[in-house]
C-alpha cells in the first residue's frame, strides 16, 4: 500500500496546469516544424511560421500559448494499492484553482451550462479515473480549447458501415470544421464501446504523443490513411489552403455491441497540450 497525501497531488496539478499552458510538448513542436518544412503553399508556410514563433514566445515569456487556456481535463491512473490521504478530487480541483492563479490563466469555466456564471478560477476540472493494478499514481493534465472541441462529433454507425463508414465520417467532420478548429489539427478518433465510451476513447487518443506509432498494424495503417486523406482536402493551416491540415490522427478502440459501431471524432487544435507526471510520496 502506497500512501500519497492530497497536498502532494494538489501541488503537482498546480505545476502541471501552468506548464501545460506555457510549454508546447516536444512531439507536437516536431510535427509542426516538420509540417512547415514540407509545406510549399506560401500562405500556409507563413501561418506555420507564425505558429512556431508563437509557441517560442510563450515559452520564453512564460505566458499561455493560447488565450483559450481551456477546460482542464485530468486523467488519473490510480493503482488500486494507492491510498490517498485526503480528498483526491478536491485536491485536483484546488490544484487547478491555484495553477490558474499562478499561471495567469483565463477563467473559462461557467458553473452552469444555461445560467452561465463564470466560476472565476477554472474549477472544476473534467476528471477521469482509471483504476489499475499496482501502487502507482499517474496524472495527466490536458487543457482543452473549445474552438476545436466545438467541432467534434459522435455518430452511431451500423456494423455494416464498417471501416469505410468510419473513414467517411472522420473526413466529413474535418471538412465541415474547415478553418474553425485552428488547423493544423490533431484528430482523435474513438471507435467502439458505447455512445459515451467512444467519445472518451477519442479524447484519450489525443493524449498519445503526436509522433508515436499505433502498436496495432491494422490501426496504424488506418491512422496513416486517414492522415493522408485529410491532408489531401487542401484546407491547410488556418484554412488558407495547403497540405498541413492535420498533424496526426490517433485512433482508440474497444469492444462494442453486435448491433453497433459508435464513432467519435474529437478535434484538437495545433495547441495540443498535455503534461503527465507520476506522483510519488
Amino acid at each position, binding site marked *: 500500500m502506497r500512501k500519497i497525501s492530497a497536498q502532494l497531488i494538489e501541488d503537482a496539478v498546480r505545476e502541471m496546469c501552468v506548464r501545460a499552458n506555457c510549454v508546447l510538448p516536444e512531439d507536437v513542436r516536431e510535427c509542426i516544424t516538420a509540417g512547415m518544412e514540407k509545406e510549399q503553399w506560401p500562405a500556409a508556410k507563413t501561418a506555420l511560421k*507564425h505558429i512556431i514563433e*508563437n509557441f517560442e514566445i510563450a515559452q520564453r515569456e512564460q*505566458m*499561455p500559448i493560447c488565450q483559450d487556456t481551456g477546460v482542464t481535463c485530468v486523467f488519473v491512473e490510480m493503482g488500486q494499492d494507492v491510498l490517498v490521504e485526503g480528498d483526491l478530487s478536491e485536491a485536483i480541483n484546488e490544484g487547478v484553482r491555484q495553477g490558474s492563479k499562478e499561471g*495567469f490563466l483565463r477563467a473559462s469555466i461557467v458553473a452552469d451550462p444555461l445560467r452561465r456564471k463564470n466560476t472565476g478560477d477554472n474549477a472544476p476540472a473534467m476528471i477521469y479515473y482509471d483504476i489499475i493494478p499496482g501502487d502507482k499514481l499517474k496524472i495527466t493534465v490536458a487543457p482543452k480549447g473549445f474552438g476545436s472541441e466545438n467541432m467534434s462529433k459522435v455518430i452511431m454507425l451500423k456494423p455494416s458501415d464498417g471501416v469505410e463508414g468510419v473513414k467517411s465520417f472522420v473526413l466529413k467532420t474535418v471538412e465541415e470544421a474547415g478553418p474553425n478548429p485552428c488547423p493544423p489539427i490533431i484528430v482523435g478518433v474513438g471507435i467502439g464501446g458505447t455512445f459515451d465510451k467512444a467519445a472518451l476513447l477519442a479524447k484519450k487518443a489525443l493524449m498519445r504523443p503526436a509522433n508515436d506509432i499505433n502498436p496495432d498494424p491494422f490501426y496504424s495503417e488506418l491512422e496513416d490513411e486517414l492522415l493522408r486523406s485529410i491532408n489531401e482536402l487542401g484546407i491547410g493551416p488556418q484554412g488558407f*489552403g495547403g497540405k498541413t491540415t492535420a498533424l496526426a490522427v490517433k485512433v482508440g478502440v474497444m469492444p462494442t455491441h453486435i448491433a453497433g459501431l459508435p464513432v467519435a471524432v474529437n478535434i484538437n487544435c*495545433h495547441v495540443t497540450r498535455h503534461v503527465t507526471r507520476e506522483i510519488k510520496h
Partner: protein
Amino acid sequence: MVVEIDRITSPLSREDAKKLRSGQEVLLSGVIYTARDAAHMRLMELAKSGEEFPFPIEGAIIYYVGPTPEKPGQVIGSAGPTTSYRMDFAAPCLIGLGLTAMIGKGKRSPEVVSAMQEYGAVYFGAIGGAGALLAGCVESSEVVAYKDLGAEAIRRLVVRDMPLTVIIDSFGENLYDRGREDYLKWKAETM
C-alpha cells in the same frame, strides 16, 4: 515571391473597407474593441432598445477575443482570436449600425457576408492559437464596459502592426474557399 503587406489604420471608413481584397495581408494600427459571446448578447440588448453603445460603433473594428489576465508589467495576456461564427447572430445588426471590420478566425454565415456586401465591411483573420504573438502588438488595454464579464469584458485596445489577413471582403470573396481551390489547382498542375 514578394508579398506586399499594406498598413491600415482604424477607425476604418466604409470607403476604405471597400478597398480591401480577400487574401490581402495587412498590418493594422490604431484603436480596436474586444467583444465575444457575452458582450455581443449585451450589445444586442442595447441595439434593440436603441440605447447608446459603450464605444463609438461608426467605423469601429471589433476583435473577437477574451485575453488571459496580464501579468504584472504586461499590457495584456495572450490575446488570439476566438471562433467568429458564435458572433454571427449579432454581426449583421452591428454592421448596419456602422461596424466596418471584424477580426476573428473561422467561417461566417451567409447573413453576415450579405450585410458586409450591403454596407461595406471586411472580415479579417488573425492567426488562431497565436495568443502570445498577437499580445506583442497591443500597446494599451483598458476595460470600457462590462467589467463583470471578466475576460469577456469590452476592452479598448491600441494595437500596432497587428498582422491580419483579409478573409472575406466587401464583395463577398472568401479566402477559405478560394485559398483551398487555388492550392488544389496548383497542386494538380505541379504534381
